[in-house]
């Protein structure tokens, strides 16, 4: 009897680990695809894939996070004209993720989503989407002051702002420095977000020129 219970328990845990292994494998595979994806169709398709994984898993925020991230990479593409519609998709994925857990990585994506909407018309949208983007960064830093991606994003925002408006290389540089230092010190867990180090280093180089 004891043996039977033991075998059943073993079988159950085996099945569970097989299932979670499938999750890990699928996530690893798709994260690798995301790292190399270029075309809008590929990114779009990856966003949907991550969304499906999230829907099937139900308790994991990472699939939705990557869905939102993939959709954000779609949004940076200049051929995507309707940024509001794209951000609506990003925000829908973020909402699903945040229903499970709120954390600094999600705020980083929220910042990018709002930034994309703001850039449509900075003069009139600064007060709304610019504010949302700024608040997302602030919340993200409160949740995790050591998230290198947040400093990178803040640096990008200052880098893109003309010096007359309080931005510029000099203002952005310390943020990229901080970001790169944090990237170097970081030991990300399996499946955790790692993007941004190369970009931050490249930007630091540009600021140092």
């Amino acid at each position, binding site marked *: 009897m004891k043996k039977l219970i033991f075998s059943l328990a073993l079988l159950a845990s085996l099945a569970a680990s097989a299932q979670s292994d499938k999750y890990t494998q*699928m996530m690893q595979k798709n994260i690798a695809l995301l790292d190399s994806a270029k075309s809008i*169709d590929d990114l779009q398709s990856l966003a949907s894939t991550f969304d499906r*994984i999230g*829907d099937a898993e139900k308790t994991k925020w990472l699939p939705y996070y990557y869905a939102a991230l993939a959709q954000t990479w779609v949004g940076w593409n200049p051929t995507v004209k309707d940024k509001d519609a794209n951000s609506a998709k990003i925000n829908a994925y973020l909402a699903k993720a945040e229903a499970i857990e709120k954390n600094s990585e999600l705020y980083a994506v929220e910042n990018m989503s709002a930034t994309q909407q703001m850039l449509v018309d900075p003069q009139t949208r600064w007060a709304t989407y610019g504010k949302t983007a700024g608040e997302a*960064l602030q919340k993200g830093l409160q949740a995790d002051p050591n998230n290198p991606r947040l400093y990178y994003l803040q640096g990008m925002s200052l880098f893109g702002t003309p010096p007359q408006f309080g931005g510029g290389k000099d203002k952005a540089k310390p943020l990229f420095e*901080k970001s790169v230092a944090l990237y170097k010190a970081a030991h990300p867990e399996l499946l955790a977000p790692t993007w941004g180090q190369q970009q931050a280093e490249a930007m630091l180089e540009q600021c140092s020129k």
Partner: protein
Amino acid sequence: MKRKTALSIAFIFLAGGLYAQTTVSGTVKDPKGHPIRGASITIKDSYDGATADSTGAFRFKTTEKGTMTLTITNIGYNPVEQPVNLTGEPVTLHVVMKEQLSELKAVTITAGSFTAGDAKRGAVLSSLDVATTAGSNADITAALKTLPGAQQVGEQEGLFVRGGAGYEAKQYIDGTLVNNPYFTSVPDIATRGRFSPFLFKGTVFSTGGYSALYGQALSSVVLLESIDLPEKSEVDASISPILVGIGTQQLAKDKKSSYGITYNYVNVGLYFKAIKQQPDYFKMPQFHNGDANFRIRTKNGGMIKYYTTFAYNELGLRRQDVDSLYTKDAFGLTNHNWYNNLSWREYLNNGWKMDLGASYSTNLDNLGQQIQDAYNHPKSFPDSVFWMKGKTFAIDQNQQLSQVKAVFDKKLGGISSIRFGTEYWYSYNDQHYRSPLYNMDSLYKFRDNFNAVFAESDIFLTNELAAKLGVRYEHSSIIHRSDFAPRVSLAYRTGPEAQISLAYGIFYQKPENSQLFYSSNVGFTKATHYIINYQKMSKDRIFRIEAYYKKYEDLIKTVPIYYNYSLYNNSGSGYAKGFELFWRDKKTIKDFDYWVSYSYLDTKRDYLNYTEQLMPNFAATHTASIVTKKFFTKIKSGFNLTYSYATGRPYYNFVLAGGPKFELAEQGKTKSYQSLNFSAEYVPSIGNTKAKTFVVLFASMSNVLGYNAVYGYNFSYSGQYKQPITPPANRFYFIGCFLSWGVDRSQDAINNNL
């Protein structure tokens, strides 16, 4: 060994599943057959699925077995669920998704109305636009005059829209009517509006065909929506040779409530000494304005807002009398005004929304005129020279208006909605009139209880086709009349950014106070609007063309009884028709924003003392404006130019002949009007998030070219002489410095972590 077998079996079982695959493929399209790119197809609770490509096609393989649910989703479309039987045989599906009705995508009715300040829809005029329109000097009405439909009337305050007089355009703040939106009239000088554009987050300028929620305006409504919570706490100050001001807005730490208070004082004495004015100001115009507000965000995201403003002003000016070279008309005025507005917007359960508003205002004028001789001493006349003696008078008048308004709004499945409500106005008006002529000393007063009920529904048949149907019932106790006003408008989207709108409506308005003092045996005046509008709008560009026909009925006519005594009836009539063009472009040249508007107006009316249907003296056939704004980031400065042009306006001299009846003794047309205005702003601290003080330096000059404007003529009693009505000075200059010290904490978290 046994355990090992179990393990192997389990692996085989799991792995085996991977190889029994079913291919699912198909297309996702909308009902018109357009592919829906990016639609996500998923087998529910599995990882398997695909995304539709640009032709709407998808294909994937799945290891799932049996009857499963396939879900197809895409933002902006109603999700579709469909059972599939997975047996290993390929499955082909053709899915049709219907677009969700969405407020953002749906067409909006644009006939007759310019919606400003709504960033999502593309603003036409924001508060910053108002402030940077050269010639406006931050006066909302002046900026609205650069839009099509409004006349360039410079000798009276108010918006003269599409053949309508100034009093036919009304202003509403947060849903309730403003009784005295302008500073009290001074003869032949346009006064400013009382409210700063920065109080408002949105401005809708409707030139006709507006919603059943608003009434008592024959031609136009300006709907002002006050801002909710300020972005941050700050202290503001303004300094200029003619004004000083100080104020603060305090936002609570939890960002759920705020309060504010401001005070400013305007005295043009110094300025009028430096820049010669045509009238001789014996009492320099000065204004004290104070205001206070509080705003509270409620639990469900609703807002409670209270705003109050108190103003005191006085002035005295002396001008050449039209009848005699040796006499002058000395006009003096003091005014007290107190305005209060309380509003509460709340989101209730089940898609209900409630808007409650209450307002109270009281306006007290003490004004008078005296005929003076060359030495500025009072001059008296015998009763036989009644036309001179009557020019000396004193008026004390008070207007009070209390209002309550309630509007309930309910969403009906999707984005269609129905709203209804009621409003009640209690107004008290009195006027104490004194004149040495026949020792006149008369006190007039009346009270009016005005009620309205209204209902309106927004019906979206598709995202492309919308209708707004409304009715309004009104009753006024002073005139014992009721009216029933239907309003209908439609919008149809003809392309991705283009649409056609139609509007029809009947509008009623009570006679003016000055008429109701003498006769209450008059009814509502009436206008019927027909409007057709085509608009093409993208983010940075807007083009609109609008044509309209407006029919006036029951306008107030003056019926002379004796030479100095008249009654009123509703026998007047008239029409206005025309078309208007508007083009705004912020895109073609970087940091350069311009708009062009043109109005063609054909209007005639028989009202007041007109002898027949004539083109009214405030109407010009052609009116055009060009507004340009250019900001230079490098020097942190903006330069703005506005040019306005209007063809000449008719002028008339109606005289009272025996009968008694009015006769048209002389008529003519003024020369055309034009004006080039300039303004510039320098914003040294722009974008500097660490700046403790935010500074704006502003300078403006109106009528740069020094064009001599003539708005009309005043006639002498004999009709032999006419005196042109001109602005008090040819040019107006303004220079000012606006400072604010804000506490913006959004950067703190980032700076602290560096």
